[in-house]
C-alpha cells in the first residue's frame, strides 16, 4: 500500500469522528488496473476504503460545485487550483471545505502503458518506489514510473497544492520547464495544415461529452451543447458540429483550466483535447500573466475587466 493511502485514511477517519466534516471525497481502489473510483466516504468505516496512488488522476474538484454541508477533499496540485477557481466563482464556500493537500509525483497514463505492451493485457499492476510492475497471463514487466506519466503531469509546474488545511506528505520539488513545446509545433503549422490537423484530431469523437463532464470548470446548469430552446449545436458527428463543440468548450475554460488532464484521460477514444485548452492557457499567460487557480487574490482574466487589459487584437 502507498504510504499516502494510510495518511488519507487516518485524516479522513479523524475528520469524520470529530464531525469536522460530513463526508470525505477521495478515491477507492478500482476494479481494473490503472483505474481508481472517486469515492465519498461518509463514515469512519468507509474512510478505510480510501486509497492514494498513481491512478488518482481524475480531478476531484469536479465533485464540489453546489455541494451542501461540509466536506473534506483529497487534492493534488491541479485539484487544489481547480478548488481555487471554484471559490472565486462561488461554486463552494471556503468554510465548507477541508482540503487534504497531497504533493503529487504525477499520475500514470494507461494508454502509455498499453502502447508499450503491444496488445498484451495487464491483469495486475503494482507501484513500488519509482517503478510500476505489471503482469498478465504470460508476462511480467517493470517500467520506470516517470516514463508512464500523463502528458499534463510530465509538464506540470504545480505539483504541490496551492491551498490546503492539512498537507499529507512532504512537498515535492517543482520543475522549471517549457510547457508549450507541443503547442509551438502546432502554431508553426501553415493554417491549412493546422486545420487538417485539428480535423483529424477530433475525427474519432463520439460526442459522449466525457471531456466536458470530467472537467471541474464545466459546471454550467445547462451547457451550450444541451440548450434546446432553441438548440445551439447540432448533435451529429458531422465535422462542423464536432469542431464547434471542441472549440467552444476550450474557449469556455480559457483562463480557468488548470491542465489537470481529466478531459484527456476521460476521453474514451483518446483525443488529445488538451491541445486546445493548452493553447488558450498559453495565450492567457502571455496576455495577462495569469495562471489559473494559483492565487485566490485575482479573478480569472476573462471574467474581470481592467482598463489596462492588453488588447493586441485592436492593433
Amino acid at each position, binding site marked *: 500500500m502507498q504510504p499516502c493511502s494510510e495518511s488519507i485514511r487516518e485524516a479522513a477517519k479523524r475528520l469524520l469522528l470529530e464531525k469536522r466534516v460530513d463526508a470525505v471525497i477521495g478515491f477507492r481502489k*478500482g*476494479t*481494473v488496473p490503472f*483505474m*481508481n*473510483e*472517486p*469515492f*465519498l466516504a461518509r463514515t469512519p468505516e468507509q474512510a478505510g476504503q480510501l486509497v492514494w496512488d498513481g491512478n488518482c488522476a*481524475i480531478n476531484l474538484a*469536479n*465533485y464540489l460545485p453546489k455541494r451542501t454541508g461540509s466536506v473534506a477533499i483529497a487534492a493534488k496540485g491541479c485539484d487544489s487550483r481547480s478548488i481555487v477557481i471554484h471559490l472565486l466563482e462561488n461554486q463552494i464556500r471556503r468554510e465548507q471545505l477541508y482540503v487534504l493537500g497531497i504533493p503529487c509525483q504525477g499520475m500514470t497514463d494507461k*494508454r502509455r502503458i*498499453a*502502447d508499450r505492451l503491444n*496488445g498484451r*493485457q*495487464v*491483469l495486475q499492476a503494482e507501484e513500488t518506489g519509482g517503478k510500476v510492475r505489471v503482469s498478465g497471463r504470460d508476462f511480467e514487466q517493470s517500467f520506470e514510473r516517470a516514463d508512464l506519466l500523463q502528458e499534463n503531469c510530465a509538464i506540470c509546474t504545480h505539483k504541490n497544492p496551492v491551498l490546503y488545511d492539512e498537507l499529507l506528505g512532504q512537498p515535492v520539488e517543482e520543475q522549471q520547464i517549457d510547457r508549450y513545446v507541443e503547442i509551438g509545433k502546432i502554431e508553426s503549422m501553415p493554417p491549412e495544415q493546422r486545420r487538417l490537423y485539428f480535423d483529424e484530431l477530433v475525427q*474519432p469523437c*463520439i*460526442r*459522449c*461529452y*466525457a471531456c*466536458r*463532464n*470530467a472537467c471541474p470548470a464545466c459546471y454550467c446548469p445547462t451547457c451550450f451543447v*444541451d440548450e*434546446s430552446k432553441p*438548440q445551439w449545436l*447540432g*448533435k*451529429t*458527428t*458531422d465535422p462542423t458540429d464536432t469542431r464547434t463543440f471542441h472549440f467552444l468548450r476550450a474557449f469556455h475554460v480559457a483562463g480557468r483550466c488548470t491542465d489537470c488532464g*481529466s478531459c484527456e*484521460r*476521460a476521453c*474514451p*477514444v*483518446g483525443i488529445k483535447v488538451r491541445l486546445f485548452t493548452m493553447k488558450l492557457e498559453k495565450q492567457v499567460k502571455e496576455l495577462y500573466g495569469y495562471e489559473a487557480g494559483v492565487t485566490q487574490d485575482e479573478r480569472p482574466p476573462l471574467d474581470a475587466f481592467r482598463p489596462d487589459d492588453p488588447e493586441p487584437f485592436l492593433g
Partner: protein
Amino acid sequence: MPDIYYTAKENFAGVIERLMGRYRVYAPVKEDRCHGFAPLRSAAEADLGFSNTRLSPKGLFHPQAERMFEYSLAKDDPQAGIVKEAQKDFSPRVVLGVRPCDAKAFDLDDANFNTETIKDPWWVRRRETTTMIGLACDSPCSTCFCTSMGSGPYDTAGLDVLLVDAGEGYAAEVLSEKGKNTLEVTSGWSPVTSAILPLTHKKKAAEQSIGIAFDPAAIAKKPMLELYNSPTWEEVQFACINCGACTFVCPTCWCFDIQDEVCGDKGERLRLWDSCMFPLFTLHGSGHNPRSQKTQRVRQRFMHKLKYYQDKYNSGPACVGCGRCVQACPVNIDIRQVGRQMVSQGCSCPA
C-alpha cells in the same frame, strides 16, 4: 454435424478479396491505438488480430447520425413540405470479424427494432442484407463477462458464419442459409468432413478463461421496487460524471433522438444516438424532467439493462458482457460490481 469449412490463413486475403468482389465488406481495421469496423478498401486492411473493437458494430445498423428523411421548403417547389425517404445503400454487405458478444447484441436489439408489431424499416433491411461472419474469441479481455450474460466466446447467436482460428487456417461453421451462400460464392473453402476436436477444446479453454461476474437471473427474481429503492444507487452514482461514454460504446444501447435540421430551404430529419445519462434525454417540453437527478439516470441505465429488460421480455439481460463500458468509464463504474450489488441487495449475509 454442422457444416464446417476450412481455409488456410495464407489464402484468407484471397477469400476477403472475393468477398469484396460481391459485397461491401466491413471488418476490424486498426485506427491509431484501437480497432474499429470500417469498409475495406483492400483485403490487407482487415486485421483479425484484434481483441475487440473500441466501438461495437451497432453503428453499422443503427448509425450514430442517420439521415432518415429529406424535404424542401422552397416556395416554388410543388413538392415542398413533403417528407421523402433519404437515399440509403442497402446493397449486400458482409461484416467480417464480429465478436460473438457483439453479434448476440443484435438479437437483443431486435426487441426494439424488429418485433411482430413494430418494424424499423432500415434496421430490418440492413439486417436482411448483411451477412454476419463472426470470429470466435480465444483471448478474452480481463473486462469480458459474456459467459455470465448468457453468451460466450464461441456463441453463435446473431451470426451467419462463425470463424474459429485453427492455427494455420480458419474453420468456418455455417449457421444459416445466408452464411452458406456467402461461403459458396467466395470459393477457397474446403468442407471438413469430421468434427475438429481441437476446436472443442479451444472453446472450453476460452470459456474457462472468463470469470463469473454475477448472476442476472438472481436480479430477475428480485422485486423491482426493492431494487429501485435500494440505497445502493446513492453509492454507485457518486463517481458518475454523467457522460455518455458507457452508452455510446455499448452494443445494446439503442436509444435515439429525432431532430430536423434546416439549411436555407432544404431540410433533413435525422436520427441521432442519445443517452439516458444526459439530462436532456428526459427533459419534457413543459420544462419538467422526470430524471433530473444523476442518481435517477445512473439507476435507469443499470435497471434497464439488468432488470427492466429481463422483466419486460422474459429473457436474459440487455447486456452481452463485452466489457466496453468497464473500459470506457472515466471513473471506473463497473457494471460487474453494480450487478453484484444488485444481487446482494437486501441480503443479510455475514460479511
